[in-house]
């Protein structure tokens, strides 16, 4: 049922190794999806993959992630134009036709995907031991330059926020708000800088708020999820900055606080989402916003998030 998307996503964690990988948190809750909604979701995923191939390079498709597919879906659902759905074969599915939804918004999501993916590599490359990351960095420099020139203002905001975040992490910040709001700012920009005519000023404002809170949620979710792993590898984690005996006991201490921060961020993100004018695929988006994210939150707080939804 899920053969095609899953095969792609497996590549990414392998390449990213033990580095923090903040992708893949935003997904629908599949048991509650209708078959046609799942088809649309997968269609956007394939559409994004094709958009990356066409605008960037074929090999850059390894960076493909689910979160950007959701971005593509969200923006397309606000557009007046109905996107085209075709049946196509592709490299991971050479025999069976797959639904591919091509929309103009996938182009922006593709640029975002490359930028975030490359930022990830750049992050890892700062660490000298990560030879693979430096090699990939050189190899994908041209690709990322193209993404940067496609969305210059987003790229500027992205690198500014990434630098702030890097600085905060280097100085071992214990302030959840400070670190998570930098990542929130990145997603706020990602959501609201989309260059489409149907996004007016008020939609921009709501999109920023939706993205900001989603980004906050992703950052905190990832930090909670990685507490135990980060302690073992002596990596930075905002929760590990407080006094603690071991990571497991710390996790139970911070659970209440984490639950508040995760749920409140999501409730704010939903408040903003509800103000957007969604023209199609609303049940699928509702599923992601109200069920997929809630399920993930529950799993993360219970410490069993790694099994995908």
């Amino acid at each position, binding site marked *: 049922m899920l053969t095609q998307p899953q095969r792609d996503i497996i590549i990414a964690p392998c390449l990213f190794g033990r580095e923090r990988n903040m992708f893949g948190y935003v997904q629908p809750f599949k*048991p509650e999806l209708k078959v046609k909604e799942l088809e649309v979701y997968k269609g956007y995923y394939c559409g994004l993959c094709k958009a990356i191939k066409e605008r960037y390079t074929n090999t850059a498709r390894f960076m493909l992630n689910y979160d950007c597919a959701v971005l593509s879906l969200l923006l397309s659902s606000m557009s007046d134009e109905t996107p085209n759905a075709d049946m196509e074969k592709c490299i991971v599915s050479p025999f069976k036709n797959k639904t591919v939804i091509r929309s103009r918004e996938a182009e922006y999501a593709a640029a975002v995907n490359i930028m975030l993916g490359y930022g990830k590599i750049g992050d890892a490359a700062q660490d000298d031991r990560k030879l693979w990351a430096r090699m990939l960095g050189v190899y994908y420099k041209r690709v990322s330059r193209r993404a940067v020139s496609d969305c210059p203002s987003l790229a500027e905001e992205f690198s500014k926020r990434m630098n702030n975040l890097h600085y905060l992490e280097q100085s071992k910040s214990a302030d959840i708000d*400070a670190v998570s*709001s930098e990542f929130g700012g990145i997603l706020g920009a990602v959501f609201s800088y989309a260059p489409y005519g149907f996004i007016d000023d008020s939609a921009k404002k*709501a999109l920023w708020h939706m993205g900001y809170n989603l980004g*906050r949620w992703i950052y905190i979710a990832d930090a909670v999820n990685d507490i135990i792993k980060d302690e073992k590898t002596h990596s930075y984690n905002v929760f590990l900055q407080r006094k603690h005996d071991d990571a497991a006991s710390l996790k139970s201490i911070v659970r209440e606080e984490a639950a*508040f921060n*995760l749920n*409140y961020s999501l409730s704010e993100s939903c408040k903003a989402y509800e103000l957007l004018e969604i023209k199609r695929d609303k049940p699928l988006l509702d599923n992601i916003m*109200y*069920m997929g994210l809630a399920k993930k939150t529950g799993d993360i707080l219970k410490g069993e998030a790694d099994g995908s939804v």
Partner: protein
Amino acid sequence: MDPYKVLGVSPSASDEEIKTAYRTLAKKYHPDRYRGHELEDLANEKIKQINEAYSIIQKDRASGGYSGGTDNGYGSSSYSGSSYSGSTRFADIRSAIQMGDLTRADSMLDEVAGRNAEWHYLKGVVLLRKGWYDGARQHFATANSMEPGNPEYANAYNTLNRGAAGYGQAFYGNQAGGGDDMCNCCSSLLCVDCCCQCC
């Protein structure tokens, strides 16, 4: 504007269905939910649209025997500001917050020497508007414990916690048929998932 589309109902919907849809939407975008919020103006715009759509439909169907004019129960009431009793310094800070000038409010707060309950409350409000919820909650909690009887501080703290609790419940509540136990709910979800895989 298609009023039926705004309310998300078909033109053939019954009066009762329309009323339910209107009530649900009006609750969703109720000014209370967005009061003092960054997106307050957008929510007010939305509620205006919903009220308008509802009154258009009601007028259209007036021949059907509707009594009592249009229901404008949920207006975009403007936030009149909270009743403050503190010093003029705090009053200035409050008005800065009201005008949305968070940077100024924050720097004024930093200059205040005595940090009483009201200071913590206002700091919390600034952080909340800025999207720094964790800090906001801590300051509201401090304000609350310094001055337990104050309804303003208690309200701010409770609203924040309710906002967080409300999110999870909407989903888990739906799934477990009223059961509050998250474990229960997830295990039943797992069963549902298994069933899906079988067929």
